[in-house]
């Protein structure tokens, strides 16, 4: 297995960790959801709201809201599109791709040569395969990527999809 690079250390407090553990399965669908979350992690309603606002402000939480499942809503095609981009231009082109509203993720990742030459990954959802391919063409045209080697990896079967579980520390297997 390839070695993982060092991750950024985080500056979360124990209170934040408890709150994150409580919210990871979603906000309760009750009249006072933040008060209910607080009961699960020893905070009052106001403290939960303030901590969540702080985590949003510092970017730990990207967004707070309804998390949709595309496939159930008719977005049956999704593809991971990967490009092999000159390292000197990957940041510029990543920002160009990441701006499209139909791109739901755009990351630089390491190459794993010789098996895997691609260093820029994005996810595109569409109602069918043609819609996704049309969007790939749009990106190529707009960002000047026509001659850049790439592959489109359509998803076939979804074996598992749910929010990440961060805590308690995973022990390995659930079965």
């Amino acid at each position, binding site marked *: 297995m390839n070695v993982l690079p060092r991750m950024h250390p985080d500056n979360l407090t124990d209170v934040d960790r408890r709150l994150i553990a409580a919210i990871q399965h979603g906000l309760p669908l009750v*009249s006072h959801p933040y008060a209910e979350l607080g009961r699960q992690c020893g905070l009052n*309603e106001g403290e939960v709201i303030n901590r969540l606002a702080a985590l949003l402000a510092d970017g730990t939480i990207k*967004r707070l809201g309804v998390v949709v499942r595309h496939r159930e809503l008719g977005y049956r095609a999704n593809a991971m599109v990967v490009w092999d981009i000159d390292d000197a231009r990957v940041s510029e082109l990543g920002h160009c791709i990441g701006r499209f*509203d139909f791109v739901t993720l755009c990351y630089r990742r390491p190459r794993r040569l010789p098996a895997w030459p691609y260093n820029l990954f994005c996810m595109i959802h569409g109602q069918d395969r043609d819609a996704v391919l049309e969007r790939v063409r749009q990106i190529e045209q707009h960002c000047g990527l026509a001659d850049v080697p790439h592959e489109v990896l359509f998803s076939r079967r979804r*074996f598992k999809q749910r929010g*990440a579980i*961060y805590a308690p520390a995973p022990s390995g297997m659930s079965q």
Partner: protein
Amino acid sequence: MHRNRHTETLELGTLERQLLNDFQHHLPLTPTPYADIAQKLGTTEDAVLAALHELQGAGAVSRVGAVFRTHRVGASTLAAMAVPPERLEEVAALVSGYDAVNHNYEREHRINLWFVATAADEKQLTQVLEDIEQRSGIAVMALPMLEDFHIDLGFELKWT
């Protein structure tokens, strides 16, 4: 809301569409966020809660909650394996069996099994990937995020 028998797609009412499209971010940080949403949409808190329950039950909504920036909480990585087609179901089930794995997809490529693993720290994450490698006998390629170019504003749904 009901499911179209031919397309297997959910057919949604106005409230459901508004909830799905307009509240993927900026959920009110007020004591009663669902009542506040209801007020904006000219309906009742009960109607909003009932619709969200139903959307969740139908699988259209995975949760109302937080999307965390990768690497700010715990350690995570995209990982991929080139699984011989005849072993795909078996290996996919093995991978899905880990609590640490939250997404697991088959993709059209020689490298055909793609999953995301998340753990409390890097050491546990490495352990999970090594364990998968050992039990399956297939190499795991770890592709951790190095730079994020995307600002997550949710996903604009286009109704046809």
